[in-house]
């Protein structure tokens, strides 16, 4: 059975929405970080699928860039989370709101 392009794109959209929802509504910093990763990987799925269907290799090349950015982002994000945890002994985002009026 041939897997149609629309299936891949649907999967990508679902993953992306899950990621957005996670970033917007969860309050644990680590879960938020994971949700960001999810959004990036949703974009990767879409890129690979489109590149395959259009016979264009540059989409797949772009995926490698996205993956390296994701790796860097994870490293820095986790480092920040650890630094915050050391200071406040919590990773709950509702307790981290210094920048308000």
């Amino acid at each position, binding site marked *: 059975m041939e897997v149609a392009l629309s299936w891949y794109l649907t999967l990508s959209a679902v993953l992306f929405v899950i990621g*957005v929802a996670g*970033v*917007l*509504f969860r309050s644990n910093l680590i879960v938020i970080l994971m949700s960001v990763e999810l959004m990036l990987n949703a974009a990767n799925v879409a890129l690979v699928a489109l590149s395959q269907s259009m016979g264009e290799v540059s989409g797949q090349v772009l995926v490698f860039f996205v993956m390296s950015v994701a790796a860097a982002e994870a490293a820095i994000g986790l480092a920040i989370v650890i630094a915050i945890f050391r200071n406040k002994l919590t990773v709950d*985002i*509702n307790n*981290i*709101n*210094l*920048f*308000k*009026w």
Partner: protein
Amino acid sequence: MGADRAILLIVLLPAAGAVLNGLLPLFWPQLRRSEALIGTIGTAVIAVPFVLAVTLFLQGFSEPEVVPFYTWMGAGDFSVSVAYRIDHLSLIMTLVVTGVGALIHLYSIGYMHGDRSFWKFFAYLNLFIFMMLNLVLADNLLVLFLGWEGVGLCSYLLIGFWYEDFKNSAAATKAFVMNRIGDFAFLLAMFILVREVGSLSFSAIFAGADQMSAGTLNAVVLLLFIGATGKSAQIPLFTWLPDAMAGPTPVSALIHAATMVTSGLYLLARMSSVVLMAPAVMAAIAVTGAVTALVAATIAIAQTDIKRVLAYSTVSQLGFMFMASGVGAFFVAIFHVVTHAFFKACLFLGSGSVIHGMHHVERKLRHEGYNGAFDPQDMRTMGGLKRFMPQTRLTYMIATLAISGIPLTAGFFSKDEILFKAFEFGYDGHAFAWFVWAVGIGTALLTAFYMTRSYMLTFEGTSRWPRAAAVHPHESPWTITGPLMVLASLSLAGGFIGLPKLAEKLGLSNWIHSYLASHGPVAEIAATAHVSTGMEIGLILLGSLVAVGGVWWAWRFFARHELAGDGHIRVRFGGLYRWWKRSYFWDEFYGKVAVKPVIDGAEKALAPLDSAVVDGLVNAVARMALRTSSMVRHLQTGVVQAYALAIVLGVVVLIALMAG
């Protein structure tokens, strides 16, 4: 070396000295204490240009040479370039500025020894010479004006050199503000010239002058003259010069006697061919000069501060120079500038040497526990200094004789030439010149009197400072007496460059006349009626008699009465003496008429306007920003997810718009 290279070096060496002496010690404080190094650099960068100027002078050239360096500004048809002009007039001025300047730099090494800001002093002095050279070498009025303002700035910096004392910085501000008035007139003259001639270079102005209407021409010359009264301390703008004595004495000698204050005369001599086309203004120039000379000379009689006597004497001598310019004898004015630079620099440096000695007396007195008031510049506490400072006394006496016009000294030739020219101009049918001549003769008598008085009170008679039997001043070091000797010799011999017309009978010619006027850039009036030889001899005899008589009279008078002589004069002249003593109440007059109304007006009318309208506007803007932000800032909740939600919603809206 070509003239252009030489000019570049002459102008730029003092600037380099100013930068070296000003910047290196600023960033490298250990250097500030090495006075020998700073003094050597400071003097060398003036002495080398002097040597260069002498070589240029010895080479000789008949045509004026213009050395352009670069175009300063150009707009449409109007362009100004930084160009220097070397001709007989600028060369003579360069020789005086660098020659006398180098001597005074050398003198300053001794005089300023131990001062905390020794380096700053030399940086300012070098900067002054640089600006003064710009002034005298400029090929157009704008570069001249650059130098004109530059020397004004240096004058301000140096009058207020000891600015910790409020009196000194007030004197500096006064000089600066009064000079601004004259400079404003100078600027207006340049604006008119740009409109009428379209250029500020001298050759263009001279060529275009006869196309101007008589009224415009008169306005230009009058405005230039008002500019000159500011810088050269003539009535009505002369009151800053006596106060300028607050600066160190070498400054008084260099800036406020020998060079800067003569730049007004230089300006008139440079523009002489234009000035000659405005005879009405020339009469005003001559009469102003005559009145200034007389007024300043009478004030000088009543002063007790040794430097103030010399300051008023400078104003008076400048008045003589303006008389010469006003009767169309510009080269004589420059001649008197030169001789005056010699003897007045000598007098000022001599007074500096005296003050140096009296400071020594003051220190000793304080050391011995004397607590009374003591002013090292007050002639009333001097007297009998010839026993302790023989070299200073000798040079001061020679310069006194020279300024009094004792025959065969420098002052005799130049002052007599001025009086002769005034007489000749009167003989030629200009009535005002008779007045100028008569005032000049009277002032010459007063000059001999007050200068001899200052000499007698300082060097002769009994010593009047406290504990005079035990405490003695001492002679100054060679860096001080050396320049004095050179200047005194020049005061004796310097006059022979301008022999009177009578000398033609002996086959001798008037060198400075042929150098500046008949083979040089300075225009002069062709006299129609010639004064006979007999009359000329009579005039010379009269001039000599006045000088010798004045000196002899004052010498006898003060040798007998000493300090009490002042009392006798006061009794004799009564109310008039009070006017002299208080400088004719000029300062009080300006205070009432100009200073107080301005300050009152500012306080009563402008200050409320300032606080209500100007400050009100600024405060309103600030308050508005405060109110707006206090409303908008509630958007910053500090909840990161709220911001993210806003971004997501924004993206959704954007996509919806793009899809639609």
